[in-house]
């Protein structure tokens, strides 16, 4: 759908996902890395944990679909080449420390002088302006300052960040949306603009309703409650935290336990299954699911309900519970890991996974398919991520650089 757009991608690993998303929708995205390879290629996940810049799995994941060229934009010659590329492009995306592009003479003002229609999208931890502009923005720090960490974890231990670092990708994905908004605006104005996306803001939106609602009305500060999240008030005035994640026979499941009349049918039907397993449901035998909710339950009753559900789940595996859920519309789902998700029936039925050839590994790998399915223009992965400088020949030829000139630039370590 977006094949008419050329995007120059100067992002660091924090924002690879921005260009990847735009390329999923068909845009021509040219990843520009420094000669010898982007620093991110040398750390992270590799086959057998043996570092190899051409076998980095995070690079594979978020630079697939892109073309790749090497160019040192810190040299004068490199900057000239970059500026020539800007003349051919619709947008530049970057995630350097705020101000770095300006210091190279490649800030928005400089780029818009070369090409007034260019969109520059800058993605960072905290934004291009303001008191935190120059803050170091590692994943854990951005996540902590956004509010996401304080409410995650157990109350007897420190709050928790993520073991899988991906917080910056929320800023990156807003960068993709922001780039498209600016390209749409250009239709009216015939001018580009500067797009400023911060991961802190994107993450704050995630926790806003849970944290800011209670604070706005009642000055309440939400805290952390392990596997439970939502607070409910019981009949006896006690606050109870509705358990979200439950252990089962071979892992965990998530349960969206709604105790209101709209969920009565599902809850009743689940009770029948629990009884069939020989579990005593106690006071729940005569419970009027269609009339009662948390406010009608005492703390002792709420605890009995938890105990009953806990026993039921521990009797069964994730896949048994998934089957029950599909057949009976129980609002629960398995906490999948990678093995589970590759085998997940719904995704198989939708032919979601896409096999991508990796000659350097001697095999193909399954990638998640597109984020949407559309009637015009395939959305999703098309080919593997570029090797270092894989498209130098193609792109530099287009710019009019002869192969001798390219050789000279290579010798000078510009490309």
């Amino acid at each position, binding site marked *: 759908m977006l094949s008419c757009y050329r995007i120059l991608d100067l992002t660091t690993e924090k924002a690879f996902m921005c260009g990847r998303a735009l390329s999923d929708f068909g845009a021509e995205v040219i990843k520009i890395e420094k000669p010898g390879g982007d620093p991110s290629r040398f750390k992270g996940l590799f086959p057998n944990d043996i570092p190899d810049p051409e076998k980095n799995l995070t690079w594979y994941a978020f630079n697939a679909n892109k073309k790749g060229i090497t160019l040192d934009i810190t040299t004068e010659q490199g900057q000239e080449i970059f500026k020539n590329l800007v003349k051919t492009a619709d947008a530049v995306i970057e995630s350097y420390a705020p101000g770095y592009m300006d210091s190279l003479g490649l800030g928005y003002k400089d780029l818009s002088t070369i090409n007034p229609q260019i969109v520059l999208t800058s993605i960072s931890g905290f934004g291009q302006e303001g008191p935190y502009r120059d803050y170091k923005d590692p994943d854990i720090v951005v996540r902590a300052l956004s509010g996401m960490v304080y409410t995650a974890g157990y109350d007897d231990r420190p709050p928790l*960040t993520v*073991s899988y670092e991906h917080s910056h990708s929320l800023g990156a994905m807003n960068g993709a949306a922001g780039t498209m908004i600016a390209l749409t605006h250009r239709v*009216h104005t015939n001018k580009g603009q500067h797009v400023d996306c911060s991961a802190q*803001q994107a993450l704050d939106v995630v926790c806003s309703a849970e944290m800011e609602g209670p604070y706005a009305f009642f000055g309440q500060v939400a805290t952390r409650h392990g596997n439970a999240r939502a607070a409910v008030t019981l009949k006896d005035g006690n606050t109870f935290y509705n358990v979200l994640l439950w252990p089962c026979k071979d892992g965990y499941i998530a349960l969206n336990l709604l105790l209101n009349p709209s969920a009565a049918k599902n809850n009743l039907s689940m009770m029948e299954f629990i009884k069939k397993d020989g579990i005593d449901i106690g006071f729940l035998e005569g419970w009027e699911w269609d009339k009662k909710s948390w406010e009608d339950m005492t703390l002792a009753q709420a605890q009995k309900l938890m105990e009953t559900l806990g026993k039921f789940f521990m009797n069964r595996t994730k896949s048994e519970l998934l089957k029950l859920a599909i057949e009976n519309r129980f609002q629960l*789902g398995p906490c999948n890991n990678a093995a589970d998700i590759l085998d997940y029936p719904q995704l198989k039925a939708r032919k979601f996974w896409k096999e991508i050839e990796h000659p350097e590994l001697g095999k193909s790998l399954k990638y*998640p398919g597109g984020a949407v399915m559309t009637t015009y223009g395939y959305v999703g992965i098309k080919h593997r991520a570029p090797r270092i400088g894989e498209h130098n020949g193609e792109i530099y030829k287009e710019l009019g650089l002869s192969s001798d000139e390219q050789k000279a630039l290579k010798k000078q370590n510009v490309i």
Partner: protein
Amino acid sequence: MDKKPFEGVKLVQLCWAGVGVYTCNYLSHYGATTIRVETASRPDPVRQFAPYAPTNKPGEPVGLERSAFYSITHTAPEMDISLNFKKPEAIEIFKKLVAWADVVAEGFPAGVMDKLGLDYEGLKKVNPQIIMFRTCGYGHTGPMADQPGFGSILTAVTMMDNIVGWPDRPPVPPSTYYTDQLSPMYASLAIMAALDYRRRTGKGQYIDHAQIEAGLNYMTPLILDYQVNHREMALKGNKSDHAAPHGIYRCKGNDRWAAIAVETDGEWQSFVKAIGSPKWAQDKKYATAAGRLKNSDKLDKLVAEWTVNYPPEAVEEMLQQAGVGAGVVASAKDIDEDPQMNYYNFYREFEHPYMGKLRYYHPAAIKLSAVETAMKRPVLIGEHNEYICTSILGMPREEYGNLWQKGIFE
């Protein structure tokens, strides 16, 4: 000259809860004329999510217009028409809206719109150029198409409930409805791309957005690692594989914490200087990343012995000034007072007829240099029934009155 990006784009949305609403916000914040179709008997469930603004009189029912949750998701200008789809006249009005619209976005489980004859084929008959965007938990085909999709469950399905936790305890959720906020960026991009494509080709289209499929696109490295190395990601608490110290450290005060990440050897030297160059920190075993990672348990204890003497704001300031990543583990109070968020004016306050003054209406997490984000308090159910019928659809006022009496709007 002052046109907004989506000026002239007409969006009809029948979206519930998180994903569809957040998705449409990206367009409505930037100029799309947006009409929400929603009734009091089948309201957006978020309207019934606590916390509620207190009522004016004791015993007065809370109703559907006092949820802070709803006002935090609905921050873009929208109009609302409360069409009762049980009445054929309401379907007729809806079809007129389809004829008027560029985009119809809906978030029901698969099948709901189809039963009303309002699937893509049905809409195309009314408006051949329409873009129909549908979002649901699992996608509109396959054995789970008609299952309701709650973010709290989809987070588990998409592996995201297995990424936060201690090695010795069960995992904890990263948030309650994580996929609700992760999948809309892809969804909005899809609508924007479809609009762009239509502008150039004249062709509308159908977009099927499965929240789990969008969510899984964030998880690709872990899925590749499993295939290549046959391993699942292990929970690490707050540790990192490549940096130490890296963690959440207790500070002075009640339940106060700071995040610290020392990512390079240079940053370690700056860190040591910033904490006053204590003797233990001179130990050579801490001079390299490999040494610090090897001794990270001991190191975490020593760092916490320093942080506990200061409030987290002081830790943040001292370390960031030294060029080391550090930040307050922000609570609701801290984010409210956060200087950076307030610099960006990220917590807007609006007057609401039922809730009074309320803070925390968020713009998009995008700042554009050439256009402001348009914002408004959440729309009330049926607030624009008359305006939409008479001014947008050109219905005579008398006809509108008759339909109103017949219970077409509720």
